[in-house]
């Protein structure tokens, strides 16, 4: 059981090694990287490649660790009790299973994605230490311990907005997805657009990497933005020559709104383009 990337996801050597280490040693894998480098996508692709079900847990600033285990739906029970529903007698009707519970009870090994763990409260990772380590937790309402039938592969993504506690980090493997180089990028694009004209791709990558080189950009365009942009270029049927016109009258690449998401960046870029246009 080895992950080698899939037909729609290009994984570099270091990434596959990290995933395989996490699979083999059954430790959670923490993934960081620039936005848009495919952190969330990784879990989906690993699940697909290894043929395992995927459980996703998207973390928000209000998410509590407990919600991943189970929740006691007191409001429903309260309502049922007011209406005299007989279901109210059995508390297990009101225990809502969280993502980890579902994964623990799954009959085959599964993949759990804990997405953007840094969005949650600072205590969130600490509250999951034991659960991730021993892969079990106790349900107080039912007086029973839920233990994982098969240790799931847990993939955690972080955008680095908060520092994660040391104790948590020690239990994880860590991988930082660095921005792909030109060669890898070509492979990534090839996976998404198998029939893309060679020239268009070459010109587009040229423009893209040039754009990333501009100093002072607030948000550099990333892989997912490149893919979006290429989609637009294809949909609008832009010829490769249009991208090449670097020194001619329109130095701004067509549809650049897909690449630059920040008003100030667009402005900066237009000014630069204007200046280069004025040069003889």
């Amino acid at each position, binding site marked *: 059981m080895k992950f080698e990337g899939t037909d729609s996801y290009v994984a570099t*050597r270091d990434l596959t*090694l*990290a995933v395989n280490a996490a699979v083999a040693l059954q430790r959670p894998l923490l993934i960081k990287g620039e936005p848009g480098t495919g952190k969330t996508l990784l879990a989906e692709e690993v699940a697909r490649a290894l043929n395992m079900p995927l459980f996703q847990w998207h973390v928000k600033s209000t998410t509590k660790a407990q919600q991943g285990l189970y929740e006691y739906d*007191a409001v429903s029970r309260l309502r049922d009790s007011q209406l005299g529903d007989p279901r109210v007698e059995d508390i297990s009707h009101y225990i809502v299973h969280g993502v980890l519970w579902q994964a623990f009870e799954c009959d085959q090994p599964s993949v759990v994605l804990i997405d953007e763990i840094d969005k949650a409260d600072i205590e969130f990772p600490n509250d999951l230490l034991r659960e991730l380590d021993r892969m079990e937790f106790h349900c107080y309402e039912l007086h029973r311990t839920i233990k994982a039938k098969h240790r799931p592969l847990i993939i955690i993504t972080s955008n680095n*907005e908060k520092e994660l506690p*040391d104790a948590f980090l*020690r239990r994880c493997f*860590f991988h*930082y997805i660095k921005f792909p180089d030109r060669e890898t990028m070509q492979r990534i694009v090839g996976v998404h657009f198998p029939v893309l004209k060679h020239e268009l791709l070459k010109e587009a990558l040229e423009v893209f990497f040039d754009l990333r080189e501009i100093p002072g950009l607030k*948000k550099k365009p990333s892989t997912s933005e490149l893919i979006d942009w290429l989609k637009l270029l294809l949909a609008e049927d832009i010829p490769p020559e249009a991208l090449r016109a670097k020194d001619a009258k329109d130095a701004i690449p067509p549809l650049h709104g897909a690449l630059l998401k920040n008003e100030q960046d667009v402005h900066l870029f237009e000014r630069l383009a204007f200046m280069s246009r004025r040069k003889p």
Partner: protein
Amino acid sequence: MLVDFFLHLKSRQLPVSTKELLALLEALEARLVSGSLDDFYLLSRTLLIKDEALYDRFDRAFGEYFKGIEALPGFDAMVPEEWLELAARRHLSEADRARLQKLGYEKVLEQLKERLAEQKERHAGGSKWIGTAGTSPFGHGGYNPEGVRIGGDSVGNRTAIKVWDQREFRNLDDSVDLGVRNIKVALRRLRRFARKGAATELDLDGTIAGTARNGGWLDLHLRPERHNAIKVLLFLDVGGSMDDHIQACEELFSAARAEFKHLEHFYFHNCVYEGVWKDNRRRHSEKLSTWDVIHTYGPDYKLIFVGDASMSPYEVARPGGSVEHWNEEAGAVWLQRLVDAWPRAAWLNPLAEAYWGYTPSIGMIRQVIGNDRMFPLTLDGLERAMRSLSK
């Protein structure tokens, strides 16, 4: 096993723990990687290092420890034929290939192999790349100057620049890089959530408790949402010597604006005196009295100065020392008043910490605001500042 390596990492101040070493050994036992040092590098990085800011330090430590070792011991570097062929084919230009045809493939391969072997012996001491010069049949471009990565997946024979020697994570080292996003993240450490304002959120626990007390009849409880309740006063030095640091300050400012709901900013020049201003273009016409500022904002605000604190000592110490106008009271007096009004204060200095000792005015300002309250305007400095502010 690997204990020396582990201790070496420790001595380079990498936060590695025994638990992680055991995991690494476990991974090696599970034969996750073959004998290649490259793979071992990736594996140990994945298992031992938990922060990309430490990648660069790890790269250096790894390089120091494994200098000169080409493969894990016990794995003799044999170069298989078809692999060499593949490598040659991939890295040769059309012209080279034409010349190659003339010479004969076998012969060239023979030479390349010899070259590799020779290189290994000669550079056993630890040099990293195959020479770029030479009169090989590959022509001058046979290997590009950065070194072709001859080190496939199959064997542990490495001649190109090693991955860790490229140090591509250098700019993730947190003493260097500073961008809007990074600053935002650093500022976020200064968050304190509080419930204030209109009650719009259902307080479930309160409702349940209330209902139970009510004898089973529903008793709804609402409460206000959580907000970041931190309040910040930002005093920015503009003009003069600060011109060199405009970009860093701009970034800091735009990040702070996005991060804090209660943010008030004021400008000053070199040192704070009786007047500050909110709009730099109208600094002479619309000055605010510093007294007014002090009386307007309560002591729950946190005070952040941004400035290089580099000026003539008179500007801090003497009445009339200001370069712009006649000040009745010395800058130090005003500084002291501000610090007294908002005891939680920090000064961010875009000058590198190492140079602080050479400018007397920096020392004087630090004396006023407190020696441990000035921080360099780097990511690490910002984090320290935020931590000291939230104490």
